[in-house]
């Protein structure tokens, strides 16, 4: 019954996990966790935990190159069955949901990676633990991993999923809120440029504008927050080197 869920999502002016509508979950990032990869990032959106690795850029297969595009960004998105409690079925290789997510990420990245510089990249995202907003978390993780890999980008790609409930935009939906079927909007921004926006469930056109505004603000905050993590990482590396 969506009704009972709706009232649940915002009760007493706060959400199920105690956040106010405008609060993002705890955001933590770790860069360079996988030394084997060219770039990697481990990102935590609350309890959503994702690992993104970048392999490449590498030479592209001729078959992959289309006449229009000479760069292939290949995103593999994998959500293993242990990632979430409620959705335990094994998803095979040709799973459409994962493929679609990968495709969305590819699209978003296509707008930010300077593709003309690279012939081929492969980016892998693995969801270690899922608690909602996986798409936006994946985009954030990929963005960090790409930075770690040194791939040239137009800017810091940051993404966030916002929902709409009781006249209030909710920032960063968790899995409980997502499962309630709220109208939700996933936005990936570089600065104030929206590179990707996808709407889940039906959204009234009147609600789109406030939601987009809220999302782009939230994106700026996410970029800010993650930028600090990157900076910390760099400075740590600097210190390490100077100490050496």
């Amino acid at each position, binding site marked *: 019954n969506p009704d009972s869920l709706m009232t649940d999502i915002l009760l007493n002016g706060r959400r199920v996990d105690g956040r*106010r509508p405008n609060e993002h979950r705890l955001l933590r990032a770790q860069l360079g966790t996988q030394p084997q990869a060219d770039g990697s990032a481990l990102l935590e959106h609350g309890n959503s935990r994702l690992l993104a690795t970048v392999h490449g850029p590498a030479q592209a297969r001729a078959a992959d190159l289309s006449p229009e595009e000479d760069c292939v960004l290949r995103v593999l998105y994998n959500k293993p069955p242990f990632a979430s409690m409620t959705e335990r079925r094994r998803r095979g290789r040709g799973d459409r949901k994962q493929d679609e997510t990968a495709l969305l990420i590819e699209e978003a990245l296509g707008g930010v990676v300077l593709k003309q510089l690279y012939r081929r990249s492969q980016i892998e995202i693995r969801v270690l633990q899922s608690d909602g907003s996986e798409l936006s978390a994946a985009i954030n993780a990929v963005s960090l991993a790409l930075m770690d890999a040194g791939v040239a980008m137009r800017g810091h790609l940051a993404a966030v999923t916002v929902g709409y409930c009781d006249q209030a935009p909710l920032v960063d939906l968790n899995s409980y809120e997502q499962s309630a079927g709220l109208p939700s909007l996933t936005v990936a921004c570089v600065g104030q440029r929206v590179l990707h926006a996808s709407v889940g469930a039906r959204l009234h056109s009147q609600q789109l504008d406030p939601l987009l505004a809220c999302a782009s603000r939230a994106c700026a905050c996410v970029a800010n927050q993650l930028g600090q993590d990157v900076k910390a990482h760099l400075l740590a590396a600097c210190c390490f080197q100077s100490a050496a």
Partner: protein
Amino acid sequence: AAAISLEGVGGAYIICLGLYVCGGLVLLVELLWLASNFVRLEVAHRGAPEIGAQRDRHEELLSTDGVRPAHSKPLRSAVPELEAAQVSGQRFAGKCGRPWHQPLPAARRSKEIRSSRLGSADDTPQDGDKSSPQDRMTSKISLRLHQAVLGRGRPPGRGELLVDAGGPGRKFVRSLGVVLANELLLLGEQQLLLGLSNKADDGEGQREEAGEVGEAGAGVGEAEPVVVRPRHPPPVEAVQAHEDDLDEDGAAGQQVHGAAQLELLEIGRQLLDAPLGDVAVAGEAADDHCGDDEEDEGEDGQHLHSVEPGRVQPAADVVVLGVVDVPAAVVGLGHIVLGVQVAFEAGGPQAEAEEGALHLRLQLDPVGRHEGHKVQDAGQHSADKHATEGEVPRQAGPKVWCWLHVVGAIQSELQDVMRWTIWPMASASLCADAPVLMATQRANKHILLRLDRGRRVRLVREVYLRSDVPCCSELCRRGCQAPADGCASLPAALTHYVLPDCAAARAYWELFELPEVEGVLLTLTSLHHIQGAGGRRLYNRVKSQLRDPRQSTALFDNEFQAECWRDRRPGESEDQHAAGLNWSAARWYAQHLDYAIPIVLVTDGTVEPCQPEDKGGVDVLSVADYVARFHGDKPQVTQIFESLRASLAAAEAASSAEGSAGESTRGDYPEHLSAESLKAGVKSGQFLQGCLHVSRKSGQDTAVVSLSGGAQMLELKASRGEILIVGQRDRNRAVHGDIVCVQLLPKASWAQPVEGEQQTADSAAAPTGRVVGIAQRNWRDYVCSVEPAADGSSKDSGASKRILAVPWDRRVPKIRIATSQAAALASQRFVVRIDAWPADSQYPNGHFVRPLGAVGHLETETQALLIEHGLAVREFSAKQLAELPAVTEDQPWQVDPQEVAKRRDLRQSHLVFSIDPVGCVDVDDTLSVRVCVPVSEYPWVYVPVSEYPRVYLPVSEYPRVCVPVSEYPRVCVPVSEYPRVCVPVCLCPIILDSVCQCPNILESRCQCPNILESRRLDNGNIELGVHIADVTHFVKANSLCDIEARQRCTSIYLADRRYDMLPLLLSGNLCSLWSQVDRYAVSVIWELTPDTEVVSVWYGRTVIRSAYKLFYEMAQRIHDGEAMETAVPDIPELAPLLKRDRDLLRRRFAQLREAVSLLVGVANTIKARRMACGGLELEGVEVQAKFADPERTQLEDLVIAECMIFANHWVARKIVAYYPSQSCLRRHPPPRQEFFDSLIRCAQARGFTIKADSNRQLAESLDSCVDPADPEVNRILRTLATQAMSNALYFSTGALPRDQFAHYGLALDLYTHFTSPIRRYADILVHRCLLAALGDSEAEDALLPNQELEAQCCLMNERHRAAQHAQMASMQLFQCLFFRARPPTDPLRLVEAVVCQVRDSSIGVFVPRYGIKGSVRLARSDGSVLDAGPPARDLRSVQAAPPLAEAAPDGCGPRWIPAGSGASVSRDPSGGSLRVSTGPEQKQQVYSLFDHLVVRVSVAESHSHGPALQLDLVARLVSKDAGAADAGGGGKADLVRQVREREEQQEEERRRDLKRRQGEEEGGQQHLLQSTGTLYHFLLDTARRDAKRRRGSGQD
């Protein structure tokens, strides 16, 4: 021609400019990201003529490695041109000594990558592979930060961040480029320089290819790959030395950092102020400056060049690497500074060793104006660095200077760059004012969910902890945030706060629901427990109570309070953890409130909480102790506690018994399917879902499920989407009103449908099914009683005992309750709630809630009626009454002058009056009507000075202002100068009433509406006004009164009393538009042409003073032309004038009569107009009589109703225009044609034809169906037509498409309810909507959004229907009580009835005299048939007939003929008549529609279900007795009065009796609760006092 490419500009701090000049005319600017080498590679690759051949070769190369990569990608290299690149890369790599690309651990991957980067596959540096991880780390990043002064003329103190791009550290450079550079720049204003040098080969051959490649123009025209070479960090000493140099040169170094910033700001400002200049061209002939540069080299390697625009010179290949430098201050001012580092290579193909770097800095403002540039030969740097590698690069004087030609086209691109560049600043500011926050403190909560089929899921939910969780108490002194909207707060004036534990809250929630238990603090932990363990219904109830501000119950989010939360310890059960959380919440709360109020933690003791040593000001009590100690004196609380406890104990005993016996279910009922499988079944079509309706008549056996989704299957269409359910087992524990899922039975086992009016002779079996599961229980409170025991034994009161309660509603099964007061409940009605219905139990289990009173008493039965219809209301609380203005006897309410100033004042200008039924207290509508007489009829306007100190002329026409009276004793204004005067009808001699009384003439032009109006209405048009009480002025949105009214939705009018929607002060005083007092109103005023075309409409808030409060009869008399002398004494407003001033009286009366006549005329015209469109005059569709007799004066009621319909319609038009998606309207859907079948058949029986194709046809044909001999015919036909229609409904305009807005019955496209805001909540909503449409911001804020409005509309529809049913039931109750007291032979019992329905074995009759509808049985279930005997002539002739007897003598009255004697009942195939053949002699008696009968009214008593009227046939009438309907007194009002009087007498007696008994029992010390009489009479007394008060107020 210039081709410019700006690829990869976005977000750039690092831009590589590729510059290629060819033919001296073409300047290609390539702005690239750092790694332009890839571009080169790309060029090379694209230049590859063929691929296939090379692939093999590449694979060969790879295979030399031994292992083939898993996803080997063939390289497209190895074209001859590329070879060169490879060679150069190789060469370079070798020369560097360290590859710029640090090899990655996986050798193959590194090779592949490298090959793609450099275009060489076989170049695997050995040292890279050997390097240790440590080396890798150190080489990964080399960031150098040193202070340097980069130029003269530049403010000193700028930092330079040198980032080495070599090795994998390169990626950090890019990271920096993406995210960090700007921040670093912001921090220290460092300049980011990328130490990249360039290696360029000269390749004439490739230049041609470049032409091919450059399809995007973009392109890079370079022929040869640019190799980005790392600049390795100089040793620390070197850098130090360099810094020293710089510092010596620099003017002030770091110290002037702040000043520099200021200066930068200043520069930025100047730049901003500068006018837009020409396209800036920065270019210099390389040849000219070659020498300079070399000279400059000798200095600090920095040089500032002047720019000479337009000088473009062809030159050798130049490659520019760029670094964009964005000083924060400048960026902040909207400027961009591009720092371009230029590296170039000049010379022949062999000169690969020669390299040099030149730094060119170019500052640009947003419009592309350059500010200047500096050129710096970076040779020195590279020399320094390479020196460390043991390699001294040769300095070669550049032949060519780079050219920077920024042409106009680049301008917009640069602005774009600027926008991109600025965003980090913008985002920083965005972050500052954005409310998006990052949560910080977090814990995890583990929840174990039990799903169906024993599945368990462990969920982890985050818990974000914070310190600012509101405590929701008014006692809080720590500035807690107010609780969120819609959540209650705990008042300060309480003795204690009670915090129920999880289990206590769940099991005893009903206790905390009582209004007597105040200050309930519910923790989130308990709420979660209720949600998890208590079921959804309980959870919803708790939530609605939390949301209800009338209840002082607050929710405390203890789980998010940082100090209250603790993680679950290992080994701790979930319940223990919850108990611990509640404990800490209670202690924190006590401490938070500074121990100002005791906190009582109530626990039911099932979970042993880990008791902390420190109780911290918290008292712990069990539920029993708590009730005893705090509420021992409140019987409501103790009673419900006892009942709940008994019920819980019984349930526990049952479960333990079952557990011990170990036997499975007895199998009374099949188990229900799980919710999931139900859902799936409904989706797949296997099951059907609908609402279960138990038939009232056929009792317990059959039920019908009306499908919610409409009839999907063909067979179901015939049965109107209804499925029959026969028998208790198939019904499977579903209770009337539940939403159930049904499985259809095979057709063979379908059953015959219940007897109904649609029944035809050839009726097939109806679809039959069985209930497989219940989607939603809709249990409510049931009024029950206990069947008196036959033997009267087992009176062991005290011990808990299980008894069966019989619900008042016959459709509900008996309920088993456990109670210790079985004896006390024996003759009472009481409320019961169902708890559960296990499969092994025949009856559902429930518990006792509260007593209502003794069976059969008026009060009890009335309360039972209300509860059964879901209309039980509480008294208005003190808080709600406190919101109203204080009004006392000596200080009556007065209008507020400030408020009056905001409203249009109609007190003087309009004659306003109301017409209502007699005895009406809440007058919510008044009318005004007047005609504006053309001025020509009044040649002169005579203004008596004594009354009008000032005369106002329309200012627009007369610039002159008013004439002070003192100067002129009399003012005579010729008509020509006073052209427009608004004259109320019949006021010819006294025009004064309409003259404006505006105090300020100068302002009157625009502000006094009356002047404008009087100018407008000079054309003989009619002005009609409807003035409705302005309830929303008093009832503000979301105030307590508003919430209460929103819940009640409507006033309930029972036969003898009413339950108001608003407090009496409002409904009976402030909002009642009494005569002779000032009242606020919302008015709709039309200007109508004489034939009632609407010219214009005015809506708005007004202040009025009603002149007359007329009753229908009075108005009718006035209209009929009754003489003044006889009429006036009955008009209280005019009566005093009778003696004082007859002249005035005459004028006034004439005025009133004129107005009433005009009103009637206008209303009739409007009505005729509407009727012409097809409006229906139906019984009870929309024209609902107020609390009055239905026998009304036909004219006035319809006139008023017509005006109200008119107003409603126009208001609907207004609000829909303004709020097309959130207006509350009322629609009446057109009926389905098949529903008219019975109506058409009935009419045919009488020879009438009815066409129901459209509402107009229906109205016309109904009008034509008049039997002059029998007025009842038309009335019954209209009733039948009403039954065929669906109900009119409120709806939100956003919820339906526009074509469904129409009102069928009234033949209006838009309709709403606006005219009775005192009695209906819909009108309040519409008032707010109208006022918002008129620009009232307060009302606009209060508008409900579509979804909420739709929900509210559903509630209103439901409550309206319930209120109507309750009203009918109440009337029936009174009829029963009335007839019960009559002796069986009372002549009043014998009445005439008309057949209005023919069923299978009975006929439906209507008794016009009492307005009773009922059925007369002609056959009994045992097969016996009623022989009516010979028809009688008239009513009087059968008066002496004895009561129906089993064996009346043949021929002198009706008698039952037992089955088997050949008597039978058969229905005519047409359905219009019923034939009774009595016995073998085939004597047939025919009952057809509209036949007149004589019936005897008697009362069928039922202990459990209340009394019901029963009609028995006495005789048939041969001829219609025209006078019968009118004969005999006793309208409904009479009936009610008689019943009430008798009831009061009886109660008086009872009270006397009670007093006497109390006196006897004084010594007995009987507990109030234990004594039936005491409790009951106590309640009765209260009820009676209430009733008296109500009646008293009703009659004043």
